[in-house]
């Protein structure tokens, strides 16, 4: 049986191989002072959200490696803690990076990762669903809409721009719900059309008839929320499948990724048990790359990797999940370099924002960790000024439930992205969030 340390030694070699796959690296600078200058904000920026769903144990992703925090961590994480230096890269400021978060070490060395530890909210709630809702709404006074939905309300055309916000999930997260506009949900690249039967020339134009039902509903005076929801969902589907980006048969132009993604047969890293990593996030981000390549006008994409609610079996599940998460983000970032459209090179255009609803309890249980509070977000992109933003929580000063006290308000991250990436003015940003939150310096 391979030990974790032996595995990581093996990984060292494949990690180097992965780094070599970076087609458009920033020169491979790795020592302090040698970081490349971030590229300016592009004219057609794209935001890709990666939702780390379930409340991830970021204490084991970027564990403390010095000072009093390390002592607490070693005590409370006697079994699950990641303290072996061979498994870690020092990020400075008493924080290390778990090498299981594949590819992020290389991106960090290139200065393309902003780490935001201790991100959270006042009066934290330990419920997934309450907290997901609050993260989604992202408002000083939550009122049901999401921060990106409100952005869509102001930035997108009321009648057009159907494909400007896309989620690669079968559901529509609250984060993407506006009062008037909402995002399109697209989960596959092919067959994004009505059943072929309806487009048959031997019958009347049924697709148009179907649209009659939806369009009429939207123009009617109905105020019934259910009726309008049906009409809007149908109309979005209809308009999206009519977009020229979806070609013959309602399919996006096929695209072969230029790098291996986790889950691919050619991807060099596997799960602890030697089987393929999850391809869940890979499939989603490959589709995003394909959509960008096809010229879809989307400005915001939403993706999700679940499974992080590690109350149990964390020693096995967590490394596997980290490999899929980090590896996919790295592969996607590298893959984007090969995509150039009239709007520019995709790697220059994409900012990846990863977040989770909360971190987990500092004290482990038997084999897992329970719900906690403050989390870790990170942003990846060529425009990012890499480094640590905000303070690592003080593990010697936990709250009454043994959870971390947050050090960074999550709405400050949103404010930074709205103003410095999505082109909102400072005043408009504050309006969208309902208050002014301090911007972070990574953009």
């Amino acid at each position, binding site marked *: 049986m391979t030990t974790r340390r032996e595995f990581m030694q093996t990984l060292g070699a494949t990690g180097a191989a992965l780094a070599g796959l970076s087609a458009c690296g920033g020169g491979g600078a790795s020592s302090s002072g040698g970081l490349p200058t971030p590229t300016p904000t592009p004219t057609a920026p794209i935001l890709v959200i990666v939702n780390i769903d379930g409340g991830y144990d970021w204490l084991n992703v970027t564990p403390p490696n010095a000072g009093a925090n390390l002592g607490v961590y070693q005590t409370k994480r006697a079994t699950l803690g990641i303290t072996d230096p061979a498994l870690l890269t020092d990020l400075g400021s008493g924080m290390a990076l778990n090498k299981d978060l594949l590819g992020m070490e290389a991106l960090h060395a290139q200065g393309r990762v902003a780490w935001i530890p201790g991100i959270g909210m006042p009066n934290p709630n330990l419920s997934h669903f309450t907290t997901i809702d609050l993260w989604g709404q992202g408002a000083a006074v939550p009122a049901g809409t999401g921060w990106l939905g409100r952005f869509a309300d102001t930035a997108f055309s009321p009648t057009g721009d159907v494909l400007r916000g896309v989620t690669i999930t079968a559901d529509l997260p609250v984060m993407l719900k506006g009062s008037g506009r909402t995002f399109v949900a697209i989960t596959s690249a092919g067959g994004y059309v009505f059943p072929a039967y309806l487009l048959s020339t031997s019958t009347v134009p049924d697709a148009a008839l179907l649209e009659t039902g939806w369009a009429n509903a939207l123009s009617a005076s109905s105020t019934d929320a259910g*009726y309008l929801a049906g009409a809007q969902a149908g109309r979005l589907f209809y308009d999206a499948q009519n977009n020229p980006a979806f070609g013959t048969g309602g399919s996006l132009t096929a695209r072969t990724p230029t790098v291996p993604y986790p889950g691919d047969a050619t991807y060099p890293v596997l799960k602890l048990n030697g089987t393929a990593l999850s391809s869940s996030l890979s499939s989603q981000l490959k589709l995003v790359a394909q959509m960008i390549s096809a010229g879809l006008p989307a400005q915001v994409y939403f993706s999700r990797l679940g499974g992080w609610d590690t109350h149990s079996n964390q020693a096995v599940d967590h490394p596997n999940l980290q490999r899929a998460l980090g590896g996919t983000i790295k592969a996607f970032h590298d893959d984007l370099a090969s995509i150039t459209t009239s709007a520019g090179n995709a790697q220059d255009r994409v900012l990846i924002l990863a977040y989770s609803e909360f971190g987990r309890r500092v004290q482990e249980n038997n084999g897992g960790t329970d719900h906690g509070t403050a989390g870790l977000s990170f942003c990846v992109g060529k425009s990012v000024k890499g480094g640590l933003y905000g303070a690592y929580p003080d593990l010697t000063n936990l709250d009454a439930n043994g959870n971390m006290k947050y050090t960074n308000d999550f709405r400050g991250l949103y404010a930074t992205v709205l103003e410095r990436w999505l082109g909102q003015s400072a005043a408009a940003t504050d309006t969208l969030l309902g208050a002014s939150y301090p911007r972070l310096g990574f953009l």
Partner: protein
Amino acid sequence: MADLTAISTWTLADVQHFGRRAGFGLNPAEAATLQAQVPSVAIDAWVDGTGAAYDATAFTAALATADVVAEPLVSANTTVAGSVAVPAVAAPHPFLVQGADAWRNNLNTAQALLAWRMQHNPHAFEERMALFWHNLFATGWHKVNNAALMLKQFQLLRSQGLARFDDLLVAISKDPAMLIWLDSVLNNASGANVPNENYAREVMELYSLGADNGYNQADITQLAKALSGWSFTYGEADYIRNPANPNQKFPADARFKVYDGTAIAPDTRLWWSGTATVSSNMHATGTISLFGQNLDVTTTANGWAKGENAVRSIISARGSSCAQFLARRLLTHFVTTGFSAQDLADVAAMIQAANFDLRAALKALFKSQYFFSAANRHALIEGPVSWIVRAARMLCPSLASAAAQTPRGYPAWRLVTNSATTFDEAGMKLLDPSGPNGWKEHTAWLNSNTMRYRAKLAAALTLSETRTYNSVAYPLFPAAVTVDWFPTAPTSPQAVYDRLVALLQPAPIPAAVSSAWLAALWPATFTWDTAAQTKARELAFLILCSPSGQLY
């Protein structure tokens, strides 16, 4: 306020409203039969399943040949000693997922079985109520990894779904699939061990009280201690090996047991290689403090398990919060999301007055003026599974008719659930929700992707699509327009439309829309010929996909 006094008479529209909400729809003839009965008598029988109309004899017999899709051969795994090929199973056959077939562990088959049951169970309410509880006690196959245990839980929801709520909550807390799903089997609080809080949190937040509604973090930790060691055992006979790969074995059944260091012979826990005779000791001993009350979780009474008193105290100590939680869920699923705070309080008070007897509470709700009020008619968006099941009930042959056909006239549900039409993409992956919070209802059912897949499901049903599986083409939803939809030949486009509306029962469709449809489909003279029957299929598709067609 919600007027909870009982109705004394009902119209055909009332009966159809009741049938849609409390079952999977009634066709016009069925509705007329029910309307002839006194509402309170009819509703009692509907809920209880008593009387000839709900007799399950033919339904139960039909399960033996309910799957119309032939099961292909499973080749032996030649690298595993003792492997033998599993022969193909000719159709029709039972859904091969339980008992001796547990090793197949096929989610799509389990979903198909449930869809078939919803379509054909004469006691539809039993299935509707189980579907409601499945969304509330949402448990997922992807972690349980055992379709047979998932179906065992669904059967629990059927059999206990109208019990007292405290009994139901205890039963679901002891259910093997649930014990796996929220980590109860790994909750060790003996000695100095730190308990696993997963189930304790969600049983209050998601299953009985609602977030932050009458408990705090300390209560969660204490309840986790009370429920530590809650687990289950398998008997050797429960292990079902995959004949084609004997290394794979799945328990077809399991029994609740508190792991407190006592004997478990002759049963053994799955991962104990079959020799253990004593359970490990994972249960906390002594007294916990829950909701400000001290509870002894070591000694037992009333035949309760160790710690069971803690689950029951959720209802006894927090009855008002629990009743409010249940009222909200019942209203959202069965009545409307547009309830006022007073409506909610009224229904909660009724539930509490009924002492959490779900059968009594549901009957009172369904008989109420409030349930039948005009504002609540077509006021909800239907979930995708019941939406397609209801359409199938209306458009496909009845059980008696389908069972008499060769091949059987049942939908190929097994292919509906695993082909491009899947429940997953339509927004409700039956038996496998992504999280323990289940699915949000009403408007949350709809977005551009779920609408896309509703269109695919509607097309599969109305446009007579087939799917090829192992070189055999199967009709996904066999139905004959002339026999099943129009036993009386329509004489005009309007008559076609009226009949389809009577079957599918959408919310009112604006006249401008329906007239545009009819004008496009039948621009000239109407003749009830093959071409017109094809157009009738298209019209059914349009109704099902319209905004009105999502409401029920």
